[in-house]
């Protein structure tokens, strides 16, 4: 916990330095890295085991072996043969793309109204928006299901994408946080030049708030990619499933046979695109998570 102390950063901080002699400081450094490396292993090893298991030949997968005797890349082909993973991929991508577009298109104007415009009741309505963030999905789906059934949307991706076009609280909140960092003068100047609110939004706010919009888009993408509860309710037909549902069914089916190498191969295929997105957009991503925790 001592790392919350500032002493090591700036050389001119005296009190601690004087007390901590050189060997003691060295020991602390070693202890600190020992703890950090231990933690890092706990976080990283599961993923390593996932990859290793996915490459194990079946004869070995059922034993206690941890390292594959040879890398069985055929596992990946086999799992794609056994379940229509490619179809799941396409379905998942469709859901993600549409939900992401919907979220961005609907949340940007709303977040703008809550950040740079003054109107009566703004605070009250914003509190209402925030309070809906607390609502568990379980409270809503029982009744939403009937709406979607009556529209004939079951077994389609519509229940998973259409609501995204109606602005969710979390994305509004996050976008607003980004919008608030924009200098009001620039927006005011655009208004003086005769731009209407939609003009200011399209020509000034959106270009300046690109990192924020990216963050919201990435979060929605990851949410849709990972979501299990919704697809599990609305998709029943084998060909309509998303990867998350497909993976759970595979895991359930193969738990009996012990073919964990195939389950792990499917998991790797499911996780790698997300890790790719994450590493690609790390900075935007981390800034987004950090902003979630700060108050508006």
């Amino acid at each position, binding site marked *: 916990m001592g790392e*919350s102390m500032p002493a090591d950063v700036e050389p001119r901080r005296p009190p601690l330095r004087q007390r901590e002699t050189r060997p003691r400081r060295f020991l602390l450094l070693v202890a600190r890295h020992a703890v950090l490396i231990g933690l890092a292993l706990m976080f990283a090893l599961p993923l390593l085991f996932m990859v290793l298991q996915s490459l194990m030949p079946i004869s070995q997968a059922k034993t206690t072996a941890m390292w594959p005797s040879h890398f069985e890349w055929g596992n990946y082909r086999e799992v794609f043969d056994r379940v229509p993973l490619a179809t799941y991929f396409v379905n998942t991508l469709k859901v993600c793309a549409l939900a992401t577009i919907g979220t961005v298109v609907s949340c940007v104007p709303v977040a703008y109204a809550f950040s740079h415009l003054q109107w009566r009741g703004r605070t009250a309505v914003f509190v209402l928006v925030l309070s809906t963030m607390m609502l568990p999905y379980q409270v809503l789906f029982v009744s939403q299901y009937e709406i979607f059934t009556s529209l004939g949307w079951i077994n389609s991706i519509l229940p998973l994408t259409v609501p995204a076009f109606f602005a969710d609280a979390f994305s509004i909140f996050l976008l607003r946080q980004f919008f608030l960092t924009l200098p009001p003068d620039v927006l005011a100047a655009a208004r003086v030049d005769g731009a209407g609110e939609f003009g200011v939004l399209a020509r000034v706010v959106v270009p300046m708030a690109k990192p924020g919009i990216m963050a919201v888009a990435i979060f929605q993408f990851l949410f849709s990619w990972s979501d299990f509860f919704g697809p599990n309710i609305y998709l029943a037909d084998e060909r309509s499933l998303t990867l998350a549902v497909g993976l759970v069914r595979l895991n359930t089916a193969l738990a009996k046979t012990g073919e964990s190498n195939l389950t792990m191969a499917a998991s790797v295929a499911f996780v790698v695109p997300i*890790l790719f997105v994450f590493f690609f957009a790390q900075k935007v991503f981390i800034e987004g998570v950090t902003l979630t925790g700060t108050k508006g």
Partner: protein
Amino acid sequence: MLALLSPWLIGFFVFILYPIANSLYWSFTVKRYGQPARWVGLGNYRLLLDNPDLALALKNTVYLALVGLPIRLLIAILCASLLARPRRGNGAYRLMFYVPSVVPAVASGALFFFLLKQGGPIASGLDLFGVEAPLWFRDPAWAKPALIMVGTWALGDVMLIFLAGIVDIPRSLYEAIELDGAGRWARFRHVTLPMISPVIFFTLLTGMIGVLQSFDQAFVFSQAVRKGRLTGEPDGSLLTYAMLQLRYFQDGRIGIASAMAWVMFLITLLITGAMLASRRRWVHTAAGDQ
């Protein structure tokens, strides 16, 4: 203004307000999809009240909230405070600690089902130390700890939020307390903790609501143990509140599923209200803060 707000307004009425009101009405009825609802007054609630499954689901969910959530938050604070000051290597550690939290819940569920299985990597690892691994998914006493383990593995997002909170603490506060000769623990206890108490408040509140919804990994585990009805195998130890509600939903008992939704709604309100009320007593507010 209305034009800008319209996406949210429409969504609020159609996808939030109407469903809440509708499920309130249904919760007083016997209802199946495609059939008219039949009024039964408090019947569903009474049925829930002496339903052993509901008691079990609540017990499991409370366990996750009182044991799992504090563990997750404590380790996240520990990780964040280890990494708060800019030092060589911290970027790499931060990345490694964070990555598990982007892994989808069902994937980490499948992963830990494999890691914890009999003869799996964790059992082999424990074996090295001469410790016999428990039967995580057979033994009702060990299934929830397994669930908590996966949740703790994915603490990266909470850690980042704490990290931001700690980095924001003015250095002068530490200097002041060091002049008084405070040690590490005192610095943490009297500066770091109070200064990040708003962040703790936020993560506790969102964490509680998250726990109330916990489903994905419990579902992955229990279905792998025994496929079929949502009973939360082994022996109902993984039956969460959300899982029980889904069971009633899938059985077509929409009235009871709606009553459970409303109870969940009320619990959420209660938790939020209680936490807001307790806020003044333990959450530090700086001048200018709201």
